[in-house]
């Protein structure tokens, strides 16, 4: 009988500590994750102006290429119709 009471006591202790720890851990993880996200987003914002320039460069290059492609296709269609 006493042994079983012990067993139950142990199980209850394990449950309390266990659930407590699960919540402790995941709550901590919430905070750490939020912190990380904030830090990274700030860092990204700081470096983004540069990136944006870079990006827009790329884009304009890409735009040019698209322009070229468009021109080629239009010429082809004209040839096709007109000729």
């Amino acid at each position, binding site marked *: 009988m006493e042994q079983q009471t012990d067993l139950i006591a142990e199980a209850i202790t394990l449950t309390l500590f266990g659930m407590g720890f699960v919540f402790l851990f995941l709550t901590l*993880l919430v905070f750490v994750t939020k912190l*990380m996200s904030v830090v990274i987003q700030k860092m990204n914002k700081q470096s983004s102006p540069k990136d944006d320039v870079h990006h827009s460069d790329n884009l304009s290059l890409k735009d040019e290429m698209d322009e070229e492609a468009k021109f080629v296709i239009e010429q082809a269609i004209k040839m096709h119709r007109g000729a």
Partner: protein
Amino acid sequence: MDQLNLLWSNTGLNQMVPGQGLMLLVGMLLLYLAIVKKFEPLLLLPIGFGAILANIPGAGIAEGSGILHVFYVVGIESGAFPLIIFMGVGALTDFGPLLANPKTLLLGAAAQFGIFATLLGAIGLTALGIFDFSLKDAAAIGIIGGADGPTSIYVASKLAPDLLGAIAVASYSYMALVPLIQPPIMRALTTEKERLIEMVQLREVSQTEKIIFPIMLLMLVALLLPDAAPLLGMFAFGNLMKESGVVDRLSDTVQNSLINTVTIFLGLAVGSKLMADSFLQSETLGILVLGMIAFAIGTACGVIMAKTMNLFSKNKINPLIGSAGVSAVPMAARVSNKVGLESNPHNFLLMHAMGPNVAGVIGSAIAAGIMIQFLG
């Protein structure tokens, strides 16, 4: 004539004990569930087939130098198979939704109460003299409520190897039954108004965050609960391989041929623990019942936690995503979505539910680490 006698005496027909016949039927039942009912077929088909092989009278495939026993010793006793599967699961996991809404981690925490409630239940039944579970047994059974196959197998192999077969079968079966077990509980614990809650769209998460998260998770584990480090370490490793983008060929192999190969041998090896004399015990029935309860309680706690969080926060959570905290990825998240659509056919909860869903994986691995630390 002697030869004929020998031949006869060695047939399975002659050597079969009733338990083996029954287990052959159990094996076929698992195959039926896998093939016809499509219950987690990737695991239940190999497990079912392994169960059949293990119970062929006189063949000894699951004992001594029998091949299934070799697979068991090499892959499960060493911990390698469940850990490799966990690496594969990591490589298949997207933490994006979780990172976009980190507080859903708490739903994954709450749902783990199913694990501990079941532990208490198992010990209670022992106190009542109905079963005879040790604390280690009870802990291993409780992990079924984590709804995470490899975690269950890993913990059972450490704490209660004799119960591994029943625990693994219960774990995968109930994961397959999630669409049946969860909806009634979810509906009972929520009002129509709550089910209609629409959540704000998740922000896009940068690759940097996705790369840092698994490392940060592992560091936290390393500092606070080293016994969870093998499981969560391999999980984080798989995820980092995927998100880093610099080892795509490794990540592809992990997500395909490696996880598939290990799944086959893990399944067969688990099946080898379904031998008649160890499986056909009253304990097995207890495990099946307790496992079901664990799922139900975990589901309920996830939903209740979501409702509780809504009391303290302006950004309301639809409590239907709380049930996804038991993990059972991605089934439980789909169930959240489906039940949500019943109330409002334009309210897609799937991505929101993926947060607590992967949080549940982390939560049960933490719970597993605690069990191993206190009892291992």
